[in-house]
């Protein structure tokens, strides 16, 4: 469990303690009850019925604790769970004053934590007692049981992150960090592990598109609404019984094979076959009203499918490229070594890594511009957006080519590692040839470095221009969206 989660909790508890002067364990339960929202807690605390607040949070008001009578501390009392007598001082109890022996407490905690899997809101073992056990008491009881203690601490941290709107777990697989923000809003954050994601929806950073739109898009891609679209674009329905029919021969005279239907109709105009008479391969009744309607419907779904596929293909393509470019990091590490052997200093070769980072970032943005574009209604600003998108796309492809191919030829190892550079963009063979000829020439390396630097800076600036333009559009309300993406 990361240390900063704990220190954040301790900080919040201390802040509350400074205001209220209550024990830290009570402060923790109160904070947990209010989802670690300090302001709301302070407001409730001073605004109205404190007794009710404590009752709702299932704790005893620490200012009203019954005074302990020290005379009775040495008297024996019976543990109500195991009926064994112990001196009162050896029994443990919460402020509700139900006391039980240590053994029973530990068994109780073990059964709650290990068997039932609860960490927060473990109540007093007494029947119908709602008082919640505080962390200090539990940790104290669990001394000597590290396994239970560890699991308990895990639950406490989990409850903290889940209960706190300002903290979320990093969604990267295997990452145990949580990220904290100062205000709740959907914005890109970056975890210490390097994964960049959106605090709002925990998807990877998805500028320029907003969370709800992305959600709709992902759902559209995942469900089979597009299968239905394909069916609708490539098949026709029998005008009478609505059975789906795929045409498998040339003749337009279709007889529905559905058992009870056997309707005969014209594939071309979707009207009944009878008026067609003997014109087997041609349809002269194209303009009849009902057949026109049937065709309109058909062509609309075809257009909408094509539109979707246009955006989906580009989206998917960038996603694929993104995956390949993740592998570039490893490759670039090697390149950087090679460059250093050829006389460049360590600091001079760092540009390569930076360029790959820029490439990945731009690729990701580019991918999501297609989601944005899919739902965007055409207007003047949308045309500018598309120009920006085109510009960024061209720049990104060029940069990708520099990094994947030209770099190989520059260091003369194109053949050995060509398998991994199967990029979608076509290589410019002429520049590859010239650089290959002069591999050992340091000026060629300098030239490549200059080109990569220029291009990655250009990509970065184009990305910024695009995102700023979209952001301005959001602020001025110029974007109109179509929920169905038509």
């Amino acid at each position, binding site marked *: 469990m990361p240390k900063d989660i704990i220190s954040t909790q301790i900080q919040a508890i201390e802040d509350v303690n400074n205001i209220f002067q209550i024990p830290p364990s009570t402060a923790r339960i109160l904070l947990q009850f209010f989802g670690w929202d300090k302001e709301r807690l302070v407001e409730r605390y001073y605004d109205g019925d404190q007794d009710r607040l404590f009752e709702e949070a299932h704790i005893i008001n620490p200012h009203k604790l019954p005074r302990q009578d020290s005379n009775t501390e040495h008297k024996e009392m019976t543990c109500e769970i195991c009926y064994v007598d112990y001196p009162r001082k050896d029994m443990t109890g919460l402020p509700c004053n139900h006391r039980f022996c240590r053994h029973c407490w530990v*068994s109780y905690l073990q*059964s709650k934590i290990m*068997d039932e899997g609860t960490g927060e809101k473990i109540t007093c*073992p*007494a029947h119908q007692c709602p008082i919640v056990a505080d962390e200090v008491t539990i940790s104290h009881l669990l001394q000597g049981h590290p396994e239970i203690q560890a699991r308990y601490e895990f639950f406490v941290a989990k409850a903290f992150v889940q209960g706190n709107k300002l903290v979320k777990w990093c969604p990267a697989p295997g990452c145990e960090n949580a990220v904290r923000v100062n205000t709740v809003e959907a914005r890109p954050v970056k975890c210490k592990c390097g994964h960049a994601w959106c605090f709002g929806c925990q998807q990877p950073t998805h500028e320029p598109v907003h969370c709800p739109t992305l959600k709709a898009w992902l759902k559209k891609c995942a469900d089979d609404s597009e299968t239905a679209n394909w069916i609708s674009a490539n098949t026709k329905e029998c005008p009478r019984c609505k059975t789906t029919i795929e045409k498998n021969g040339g003749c337009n005279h279709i007889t529905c094979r559905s058992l009870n239907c056997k309707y005969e109709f014209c594939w071309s105009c979707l009207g009944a076959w009878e008026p067609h008479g003997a014109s087997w391969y041609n349809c002269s009744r194209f303009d009849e009203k009902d057949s026109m309607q049937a065709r309109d419907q058909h062509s609309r779904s075809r257009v909408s499918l094509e539109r979707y596929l246009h955006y989906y293909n580009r989206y998917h393509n960038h996603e694929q490229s993104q995956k390949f470019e993740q592998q570039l990091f490893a490759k670039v590490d090697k390149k950087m070594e090679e460059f250093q052997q050829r006389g460049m200093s360590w600091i001079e070769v760092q540009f390569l890594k930076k360029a790959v980072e820029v490439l990945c970032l731009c690729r990701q943005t580019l991918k999501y511009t297609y989601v944005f574009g899919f739902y965007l209604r055409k207007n003047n600003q949308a045309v500018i957006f598309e120009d920006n998108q085109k510009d960024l796309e061209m720049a990104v492809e060029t940069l990708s080519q520099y990094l994947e191919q030209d770099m190989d030829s520059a260091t003369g190892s194109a053949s050995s590692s060509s398998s991994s550079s199967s990029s979608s963009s076509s290589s410019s063979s002429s520049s590859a040839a010239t650089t290959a000829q002069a591999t050992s020439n340091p000026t060629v390396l300098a030239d490549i470095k200059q080109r990569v630097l220029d291009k990655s800076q250009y990509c970065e600036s184009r990305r910024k221009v695009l995102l700023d333009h979209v952001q301005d559009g959001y602020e001025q309300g110029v974007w109109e969206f179509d929920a169905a993406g038509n």
Partner: protein
Amino acid sequence: MRVPFAAGLTADQFVAAFKYVETQRLVAEPVPGISAEPDEQNARYFGIKIDGPHESPFEGGVFRLELFLPEDYPMAPPKVRFLTKIYHPNIDRLGRICLDILKDKWSPALQIRTVLLSVQALLSAPNPDDPLANDVAEQWKTNEPAAIATARQWTRQYATGK
């Protein structure tokens, strides 16, 4: 009882000692209308008899139940089941009982006697709004006199004389 105990008892010895104390209590302070007999072969198993409470449709009947203490008792609730057939909205055909303290409201500070007292109280106050036997509960809500008559009839038929 999987936690080692400082008193030097093994877990089994502890359970035995513990149960002795609780059973002693049960015997020493008998509850009117309730009896519990430990099974000769299995010390975790008890045969229970509960008299139908006064002024309830179950008056005059003696209901047999079984009670079993699972291994993690008292951290887990005992398992209790009616053996005698009974017409009650919170008890189903198999004799299973819908009672909060036998489920999520269980507390290790409860005892066998308190559990049995709660079962007896359930007989006095059927709760058709939280039913286990849906048909019985439906009857109880729509036609209470008929439901009570059926309960009396079942009590006479299954819970007397045996």
